[in-house]
């Protein structure tokens, strides 16, 4: 039971005003240089840009979006994350998308061959290896692919249309291990979420997905001879209404700044 102390209230008010001031300053600092740089460089990119990207790119592309928008302040970028197969289907169904970044080449090829929606050849901009995701601290003591076929162990994967589902099946085929999944999740995030929540014991995901959990789940390395390296293609779509910006995004991702960010998130070089 503390009575209202006038000095305390005064202090609280002062803290509030200081933090408000700090916020204003931060905003001013953040806005200032980018505004001046845009007027200096005479940046021609404006309008909006929609990027559809594989779910595994979420962390890296969110950061790239910030960097790209800083370089082109008059451009408003929206990145839409999902399973590459879902995104490809949306693009084929005429979703207004300017750039597509897929986690596999098959879904990109599907767009290219069946729908002729691409302007040029897709560029491979990143690679990703596979790892076994296990619950934090690995309570099920999984150390190899063979452990995933143990009875009583809840292993989950994705449907074969989703790249990670296909890659996972490929790994087991190479290793000669037979597994019985408990669920075919709609995308890789579904696997990560259920293992992180502890409802499933293990799944095969991209190495980058495990680092993105920030320690909420652990990874078990898959030997290189049975591992699959996923190659990520990116392309600007011919239906884009902002094709200069779309090309600029592709170039930015393949450029030094984009590659550095991708590397930080655990992606391999193309």
């Amino acid at each position, binding site marked *: 039971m503390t009575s209202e102390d006038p000095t305390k209230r005064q202090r609280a008010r002062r803290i509030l005003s200081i933090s408000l001031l700090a916020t204003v300053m931060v905003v001013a600092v953040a806005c200032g240089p980018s505004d001046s740089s845009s007027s200096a460089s005479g940046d021609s990119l404006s309008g909006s840009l929609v990027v559809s990207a594989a779910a595994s790119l979420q962390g890296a592309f969110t950061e790239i979006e910030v960097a790209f928008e800083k370089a082109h302040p008059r451009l408003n970028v929206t990145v839409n994350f999902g399973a590459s197969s879902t995104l490809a*289907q949306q693009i084929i169904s005429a979703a207004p998308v300017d750039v597509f970044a897929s986690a596999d080449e098959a879904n990109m090829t599907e767009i290219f061959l069946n729908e002729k929606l691409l302007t040029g050849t897709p560029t491979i901009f990143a690679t990703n290896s596979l790892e076994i995701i296990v619950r934090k601290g690995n309570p099920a003591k999984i150390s190899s692919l063979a452990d995933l076929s143990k009875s009583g162990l809840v292993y989950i994967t994705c449907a074969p249309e989703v790249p990670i589902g296909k890659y996972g099946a490929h790994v087991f085929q190479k290793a000669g291990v037979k597994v019985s999944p*408990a*669920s075919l999740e*709609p995308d890789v995030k*579904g696997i990560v979420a*259920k293992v992180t929540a502890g409802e499933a014991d293990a799944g095969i995901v991209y190495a980058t997905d495990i680092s993105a959990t920030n320690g909420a789940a652990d990874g078990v390395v898959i030997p290189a001879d049975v591992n699959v390296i996923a190659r990520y293609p990116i392309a600007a779509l011919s239906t884009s209404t902002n094709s200069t910006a779309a090309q600029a995004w592709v170039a930015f991702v393949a450029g030094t700044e984009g590659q550095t960010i991708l590397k930080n998130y655990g992606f391999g070089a193309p």
Partner: protein
Amino acid sequence: MSEHRGTRARSVGLRRPPLAIIAIAAVAIAFFALPFIGLLWRVPWSDAWSLLTTTSSLTALRLSIETSLWATALSTIFGVPLAWVLARYGFPGRRVVRALCLLSLVLPPVVGGVALFAAYGRRGLLGDSLFEWFGLRLPFSAAGVVLAQTFIAMPFLVLTVEAALRGLDQRPEDAARTLGASRWYAFRRVTLPAIRPALIAGAVLAWARALGEFGATITFAGNFPGRTQTMPLSVYLALESNPGQALVLSVVMIAISFGVLLSLRDQWLGGSTEAGSSR
């Protein structure tokens, strides 16, 4: 009864709404009708039968029907007593209890699925006990699908039955009691027959909702053909791999739901007092 209906129909005919209202209502009708017309237009009718009778479609259909019937049975067994308590038993905090029991009606189903994990998942409140005592693992199992569907669908039955019980004339029940019937006997032989139309309507609504359940199911029970992949999950996943099949399955689901709504006569949905007098 039939005479009463006749007068009601005539009076409705006399009170025709103004043209502007009819025009706006027509827009609303088109708003609801167009998506279904569009869907029917897109369906590859020539392959419809073969798409519908593929093993994956039939497996999903069978699983959907089985799990939704189980969910309806559970909703009825637990929902009727719940509705009875809510309608008749004035206890402190009844409003809070009612809101709690109907929460899943308005909750995003995915949130419902996450909440089910927290209760019945492996690391949930009851998850370990369920496994130790009964060897039951609910996530990723058909039982988990039934649980998710019941969680989402039961409020429909509770709402309908509670409304009927509230609007019911209690005198026949009281008369039965004064004539020496036990509480249980009076409930079974007097109250239950009187609310039968509402009970059927509630059960049918709950069944239709269970059949269409998606969010809680995919979150809590996952997706595996033959075990937890129900029709809505199958439609969602087939959209990527086989759009034709997704469309055909959608039409089946629409046909079932439409049939359900058509079979529910007006009085079952609204007028609980009338339901009481009809036999």
